[in-house]
């Protein structure tokens, strides 16, 4: 016998903190995270008084604020009057095998995360600054410097802003490297109903560019169908993948295109407000987006009654505080709400219960940047961009090991070899590609011998790899692949949000196995990978086994297995 008591649709989830945040947001309260970040900017550390005032202002309870203050990297590392943040991303690792970190530690007499006794200097770790085209990189106060001579400049107190990466398109008709001009939005508002726009996006089969590859149209459809007068668009600008600087390019150098995509998403699903979360590691992103938003408002493309239509839409730009997992959509929402950036089980999906508990579309910024083209030109034109392959185009980026690093807009369906050797010109100094990691730390590693693999979702999946975010990161022939495993596992363990058990403990244990000199018990390691892959709550824990399996498959001897 079953009693069918009245219960809400779907699974009941914990929502009290979200509700407290929602109530305070409704009266323009700042989030706890914003208040804590301001305190840190103001006096270099977070005190209990700061936590209490963050609680007071945001509506989060004291304890929850304490939890927030112990979660984000930016809030945890003490700041001296001079705060030096050294990038420990994978591109910097590939460039120096972490020599730049050791040099700085020695020269400053500080370990990562330490502040000098006199409070003058502090050294912190950051992953990653997005200057992978000219690794290694350091952020010295507000200046990000990178490339040859970096350490000397840091020690001389003579850092200078690094050069931003080159970008170009291989497409005759660029989609993502075309400056945003709101023409797609103009056409949609004039000629398409929200449902027609939504149908067009569904027909265009835009697969998510943030890593998961989930069809954007389906997400939109769920959110459009969800009950609720208030809905939100969230643009995921938390490009945490070390080795990627694609979203950075979009947010900083083509922000209008991202905003246009957000407005179109809002029109399609019936949302009047959007949030975009940028990374604190990219200090230029938020100002660039805010400037573009101000310009768009001045032109009538954000704010009330866009383009003279009855549709209103505006955006809020927020900045994170140092957490890789916040790139996961439920953690991203938690971060925007100013809570701990931990992952929540789905369902409910954000389209049902998202930001502030309301229906929310979460798309990666690159995904959204595809939409203006579709709105302007239609799904058919979009499909033509990559004939015979996944529709649309993709931004990829190459790290400093390549002769021509930078951001490129490419079609799907070309070979990895074409991309690595022709477009990016192979490696510098005549080095040989030992392997490339594609799509971030959760992506598989393709050995140099298999570069003929086609760049697209399915062919890469067959090699245990993925398109992921589109970062293509080469390890040259000098690289110690056991060190790669250790580097990736260290990153994985450090960034685990701590919620699900396999990831929280398993990545720690995996990293420990590769930390010493002892050989790694292969059977035990593979069982650990299995538990991580099948047991983890999100792609962080379930994704890190992919590069490990690549290494086991292609470089077993280097891993020193037992």
């Amino acid at each position, binding site marked *: 016998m079953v009693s069918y008591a009245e219960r809400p649709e779907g699974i009941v989830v914990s*929502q009290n903190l979200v509700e407290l945040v929602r109530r305070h947001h409704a009266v323009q309260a700042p989030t706890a995270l914003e208040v804590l970040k301001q305190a840190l900017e103001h006096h270099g550390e977070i005190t209990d008084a700061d936590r209490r005032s963050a609680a007071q202002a945001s509506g989060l309870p004291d304890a929850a604020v304490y939890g927030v203050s112990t979660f984000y990297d930016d809030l945890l590392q003490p700041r001296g009057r001079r705060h030096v943040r050294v990038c420990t991303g994978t591109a910097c690792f590939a460039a120096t095998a972490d020599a730049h970190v050791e040099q700085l530690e020695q020269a400053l007499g500080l370990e990562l995360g330490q502040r000098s006794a006199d409070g003058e200097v502090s050294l912190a770790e950051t992953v990653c600054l997005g200057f992978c085209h000219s690794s290694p990189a350091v952020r010295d106060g507000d200046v990000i410097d990178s490339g040859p001579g970096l350490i000397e400049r840091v020690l001389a107190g003579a850092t200078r802003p690094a050069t931003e990466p080159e970008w170009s398109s291989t497409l005759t008709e660029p989609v993502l490297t075309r400056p945003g001009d709101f023409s797609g939005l103009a056409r949609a508002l004039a000629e398409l109903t929200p449902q027609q726009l939504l149908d067009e996006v569904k027909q265009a089969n835009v697969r998510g560019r943030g890593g998961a590859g989930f069809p954007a149209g389906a997400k939109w459809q769920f959110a459009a169908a969800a009950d609720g007068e208030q809905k939100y668009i969230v643009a995921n600008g938390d490009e945490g993948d070390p080795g990627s600087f694609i979203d950075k390019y979009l947010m900083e150098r083509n922000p209008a295109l991202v905003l246009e995509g957000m407005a179109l998403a809002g029109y399609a699903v019936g949302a009047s407000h959007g949030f975009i979360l940028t990374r604190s590691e990219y200090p230029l992103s938020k100002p660039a987006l805010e400037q573009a938003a101000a310009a768009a408002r001045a032109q009538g493309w954000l704010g009330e009654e866009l383009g003279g239509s009855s549709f209103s839409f505006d955006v809020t730009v927020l900045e994170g505080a140092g957490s890789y997992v916040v790139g996961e959509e439920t953690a991203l929402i938690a971060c925007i709400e100013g809570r701990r950036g931990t992952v929540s089980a789905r369902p409910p999906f954000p389209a049902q219960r998202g930001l502030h508990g309301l229906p929310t579309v979460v798309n990666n910024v690159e995904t959204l940047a595809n939409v203006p083209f579709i709105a302007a030109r239609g799904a058919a034109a979009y499909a033509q961009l990559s004939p015979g392959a996944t529709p649309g185009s993709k931004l990829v980026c190459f790290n400093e090991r390549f002769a021509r690093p930078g951001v490129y807009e490419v079609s799907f369906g070309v070979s990895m070899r074409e991309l690595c050797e022709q477009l990016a010109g192979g490696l510098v100094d005549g080095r040989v590609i030992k392997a490339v990691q594609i799509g971030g730390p959760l992506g598989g590693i393709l050995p140099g011998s298999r570069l003929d693999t086609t760049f697209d979702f399915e062919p890469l999946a067959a090699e245990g790899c993925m398109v992921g975010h589109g970062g293509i990161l080469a390890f040259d022939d000098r690289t110690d692949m056991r060190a790669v495993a250790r580097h990736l596992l260290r990153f994985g363990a450090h960034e685990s949000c701590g919620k699900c058990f396999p990831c929280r403990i398993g990545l720690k244990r995996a990293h420990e196995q590769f930390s010493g000199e002892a050989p790694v018990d292969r059977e035990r390691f593979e069982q650990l990978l299995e538990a991580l892959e099948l047991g983890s709550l999100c792609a962080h824990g379930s994704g890190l086994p992919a590069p490990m399996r690549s290494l086991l498959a292609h470089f077993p001897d280097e891993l020193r297995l037992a």
Partner: protein
Amino acid sequence: MTQRFDSEVTTVCGYCGVGCRLEAHVRDGRVASISPALDGPSNKGHTCLKGRFAHQFSRSRDRLTEPLIREGDEFRTATWAEAIDRIRAELTRIKATHGPDAIAGLASSRGTNEECYAMSRLMRAAVGTNNIDNCSRVCHSPTSWALRKSLGLSGATGSFDDIEAAQAAIIIGANPTEGHPVVGARIKQATLRGLALVTIDPRRIELSDYAVLHLSPRPGTNAAVMLGLAHVVWRDGLLDHDFIAARTEGFDEVQELIATYAPEQVHEITGVPAADIERAAHVYGEVDRASILWGLGVTEHLYGSEVVRLICNLALMTGKVGRPGAALLPLRGQNNVQGSSDMGALPDTYTAYRSVADEDVAQAFERAWGEPLSREKGYTIPQMFGAAVDGRLKAMYIFGEDVAQSDPNTAHVIKALESLEFLVCQDIFQTETTRYADVVLPASAFLEKDGTFTNAERRFQLVAPAIDPPGNAKPDLEIIQMVSRALGHEMGYADSAAVMDEIAALTPEYAGVSHARLGRRGLQWPVAADGTDSVILYRDQFELPGGRGRFAALPYKQPGDAADQEFPLVLVTGRRLQHYNAGTMTRRTGNLQLVDREWLEIHPDDAERLWIEDGQRVSVRSRVGRIEVEARVTDRIEPGHVFTAFHFPEVRTNLLIGSSADVNTSCPEYKVVAVDVRPMAEQPAFTPAVPEPALI
């Protein structure tokens, strides 16, 4: 878990009226731990710090373990035989000299239903008087009276489950997160899940932070607030005309009355902004399912019983009663406030509120008990003290109450106790009251006895003993039977289940109640003979002649006390989360470490005007008494009001309370006392009224 404990027993919490089902885990004859029963109907696997932790008092070193008999100014331990014989001799003497009505008994809202029933039988059958009352007199008698007048039955119309079922709710004169913590937690959760809550209290209670609206009326003006809400509901078309026509009577008069309580007028009386009155009425009136909860902040007033009737008016005029989510839920103070009155431990009624003057009922009890019974109403508690002072009452038998600590006008109560020729106290500790006793009988705490409690949802629930009473202390039912036997009236109950069987046989409303049937989930009265219980009352009709609910056209009247030049502040009294009533139990537990003193809450404006600093000792003087207490400055209270609790004998708050009481039920006006507050000198004379209770 089991292996850690010798035994585990499911019982019911002995603190407030929520009725949490608890699992008591016993090791080596002591309660090692208490956890909530996952299937507890009212607590759903939760409990508060009192229920879970405050059980160490049961093994406190100063528990009474032997009977005590007064010898001059001292008590000496005695055998049970001696003590019972002394009671027999004195009561027999006084009855012979002054008649049975010179003797009175008090049952306890802490006792089980069976004990309260037996206590009333002791007074009615063994002594021969209707002088029996219980402490619900001083808390919820106005609720009981008003619900019976308006709707028919003396109990909540629904259950705590209505909190989750409701879309909106009003809480007036209650602070559930402190007074009824488990229900408070349920309400808080409901508000976070969408319940639109309005709180009405002179203090900004914790739940006000989660409410859509908080109203702070001047103490004693609840009636005007309720009339104002009714006015707006009527004015703005939120009436349920079909319900009024089909199921009620007397609305026309009410309509005439409420027409004169426009929000602006109500603002004049209560200080509540007119717009807030309007908004509150709409929050309640616009939704389909809304409930009203109230506590002693409604009842402990000069016209408390009338305010309860005005609450009923609001529910009747909007048709918000008798459906899931549409309920009237009084928050009962003590674990068995509901049951002690249901069981007829009242001077004017047998079980289920049937009049002692009702010939059929009286005869039924005469047949069952084999004694002639009085048809005359007995004394209420205040009348007992009055009669004692003027010499008409000579003896009292007080079971489980500390009237000298918890009752108002303490000086008068003490005078009454001193005037008695003979006083029996049956309690678990020496209290302020036992100081005046001639015989003290060592009784049992709730973890030591069996029977049933009835919670604020009208739910009978089984109470089971986890441990034995300490020393020679005995279960209360056994003691009452011993005394009755000595007085020549053999009750003959083999156990508490037999008492319940007799109650069921003599009371149609409880016809289907038996210990065997209660099981783990209990039964909500009325319970039909086949065991069908009543989760919701009045689904189809009210329990009044014609089946109709009755409106009451009662205007606002001024409270019995008011601030003036000499006493410029109004004192409101209440409870703290960590303690319970007279503190007899909670002060003997670790709860004392959490909160070890009383304090007076005062608004910053008043504090500044009176040169009072946070943490400073102040003198609080009313028309009848004076206390000293520490001040805490807080904006949770409105200017002009001060608040304190009554858990600590060192601060005998009730010395301040006068004799003013509810016009219909004699419930004291604890909630409105005009006082004068001023700072104390640095080193106050400070003498505790009783020795510090020992911690185990």
